[in-house]
C-alpha cells in the first residue's frame, strides 16, 4: 500500500512534468489577444506538478505504518477476478473493428456468464443472445444511433 502511494504520486509527478513541457510548446505569455494559448494549461500543469511532488515527498517520509502499511495494494485473491473482468474487456475493444459492439458484446457476455458467473448453458445462451438483440433494436432502430457493427455484422447485414 505504501509503495503504491509512492508510485502513484511518482507517476503523477512525471506525467505533470510532461504536460508542463507540452504547454510550453505554445505561448504562455501575454500576446496581442491577451494571455497566450499555453497560459492556462501551463499554470495548471505546474500546479499539478507541485501537488504531486509534495504528495510524493510526504509518502517517502511517511512512517512505516502509514498509507496502509505493508498490506498489499491489491489483495492477492482479487487479482484473478480483476484480470478476468479487465483483460477480455480490453481484448474485445482491441478487435471491435471486426466484431463490433453487438457480436463483441455477445462474446463478452457469454464468456463472462459462463466462465465467471458459472451459469447453466441455457442462461448463458439466453443472455448473450437476447441482450445484444435488445441493444441492437434500441440503438439502431428506435433511437437511430448507429454503433460500431464490425466487419462481420456489416457483411451479414448489408453486403450479402
Amino acid at each position: 500500500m505504501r509503495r503504491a502511494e509512492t508510485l502513484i504520486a511518482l507517476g503523477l509527478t512525471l506525467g505533470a512534468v510532461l504536460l508542463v513541457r507540452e504547454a510550453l510548446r505554445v505561448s504562455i505569455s501575454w500576446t496581442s489577444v491577451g494571455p497566450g494559448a499555453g497560459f492556462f494549461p501551463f499554470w495548471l500543469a505546474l500546479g499539478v506538478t507541485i501537488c504531486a511532488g509534495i504528495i510524493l515527498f510526504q509518502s517517502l517520509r511517511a512512517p512505516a505504518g502509514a498509507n496502509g502499511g505493508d498490506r498489499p495494494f491489491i489483495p492477492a485473491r482479487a487479482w484473478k477476478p480483476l484480470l478476468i473482468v479487465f483483460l477480455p474487456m480490453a481484448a474485445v475493444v482491441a478487435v471491435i473493428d471486426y466484431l463490433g459492439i453487438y457480436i463483441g458484446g455477445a462474446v463478452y457476455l457469454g464468456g463472462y456468464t459462463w466462465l465467471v458467473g458459472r451459469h447453466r448453458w441455457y442462461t448463458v445462451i439466453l443472455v448473450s443472445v437476447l441482450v445484444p438483440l435488445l441493444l441492437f433494436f434500441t440503438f439502431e432502430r428506435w433511437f437511430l444511433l448507429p454503433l460500431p457493427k464490425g466487419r462481420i455484422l456489416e457483411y451479414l447485414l448489408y453486403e450479402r
Partner: protein
Amino acid sequence: MPLLSVFNDLLFGLGVALTPANLTIAVIGLILGTAIGVLPGLGGTNGVALLLPLTFSLTPTAAIILLASVYWGALFGGAITSILFNIPGEPWSVATTFDGYPLAQQGKAGIALTAAFTSSFIGAAVAIVLFTFFAPPLAEAALRFGPPENFAVLLMAFATFTGLGGANPLKTILMTLLGLLLGTVGFDIVTGQPRMNFGLVSLQSGVNFIVIAIGLFGLGEIFLTVEEGLRLEGVRARLNFKVVWETWKLFPRYLWTIVRGTILGFWIGVLPGTGATPASFMSYGLAKQFSKNARRFGKGEVEGVVAPETAAHAAGIGALLPMVTLGIPGSPTAAVMLAGFFIWGLNPGPLLFQTQREFVWGLIGSMYITNVIGVLMVLTLVPVFAAINRIPFGILAPLIVILSSIGAYAANNQILDLWVMLASGVAGYLFKKRGYPLAPLVVALVLGDMTEQSLRQALIMGQGSPAIFLTRPIAVGFFLATAFLFALPAIRALRQRGRPQPVEVEPELEG
C-alpha cells in the same frame, strides 16, 4: 410582481411536465433510475451518463426531464439496497445502512423503508419549493456577473471540494487541476491554436467528458466491486398500508431532524461541488448529536434513517440550482447533465431563464410531479425493485461493461474513446483506492472551458493585471469565501490537535 410571475412560470412548467409525452418520459426515467439506484456497481452518475446518448433524439426539455427523473429514481433506489441488503446501492445511501439494516434485521424493514421514502419525499418537496423561489432571483443576479465575478464563483466552486470534501486537501486540489488541465486538451478556443495534444490528430477534438466520467465512475466502480467480492444476502420486506400508516404516525416527533436535514441538505447541495453524499453524512451526524436517543443510533433507530435520507434528497434538488442558474454543476451527476446541455444545443448559464423558458420551468415542474409519483411508486413496488438485486453479479458486471462501452462510444463516435474509457477506468480504480477524490476532476473537466475563458477575459479587462479582481466587490467577496474554504482543512487540523482523532468516514463526493 416577481412572486406572481414565479407562480405563472411554475404553472406553465407544470403544464409542460404534465403533457402525456413528458409524463411518460418521467415515469420511464423514475423506473430506470430506481433500478440503477438499487443495483450496486451501477451508480447514479454513471447511470445518467449511460442514458445520455438516448437523449440525443429527444427535445432538450424531454431530455432533461428524463435525466432528472433518473436521478430522483436513483436517490430513492439507493435506500432499498441499503436497508434490505446492507450494501449501499449509491454512495449517498451509505449513512442509511447505519440504522436501516439493523432495523431490517429486527424485522422492521417495512418501517425503515417507509421512513426512508417518506423523509426523502418531504426533504425533496421542501427543497423543490426553495428551488422554485431561489432560482429566478439567483439567475437574475448572475446575469450581472462579468468575467471577474464568473471566475471568482468558479474558483469558489473548486474550493468547496477542498474545504468540505473530506478527502486529503492536496489530493483534492491536484484532482481539480488535473480536471481543468484535461479540459485544455485539443485546441485553444481564443487563438485557435492546437495545444496539449502531443502532436496527435486524434486528440485535437479534446478529451470527452462523458467518456472520462463513464470510465472513472462506471468501470472504476466495477473494478472495486469485483475486488471486494459482492455478496448479496437480503432481508425480505413487504410494505402494507398498516406499516406505512404506523410509520407515518411516528413522523411528527422527527420534525426537527427533518427540518435540519432539509435545510442543511439543500444548502450543501447548492454549494457547487458538493452533492447528496456529504449532505447525508452530515445530517446523520447532526441528528445523532441532537437526538435524545443518541445511544440507539447505529442499532436500529428510525431517526437515523430519516436524517440522511431527508438531506440526500434535499441536496439532490439543491445540486441542480447552480446548474440551472449559473451553469455550474452542484454534483458529478449534475455535471453529466450539464454536459448534455451542450449536446442538446443549449448554452448553460443565467440566460437560460430568459431564452429557454420551457426547458427551465419544464424541469422545475417535473420535479414536483416526479417526486409525488416516485414516492408512490417505491412504496408500492419495493418487492419488485428488491428483486432486481437477484440478478446475479456474473451477468450484471459484463452488462454494465457493455453499456459503458456503448455510452462512451456514442458520445463522440470514436473507437479511440473506448481506450480512453478503459484507461480512465483503471485510473479511477487506482485513484479511489488511494483517496484521490474523483468528483473534483469530473466537475472541473466540465467547467474547464468556462473557467479559462472567464479568467482570460478578466485579465484582458485588466490589461494583464490581476488587480482587476480587487476592484470588483462581488468578486472580492467570492475570493474571501474561497480563501476561507481553502483554509478550512488547516483550521480543522489545528483545532483537532491534541484531541483524540475521531474515526471519520470519508465520504466520496459523489451524487
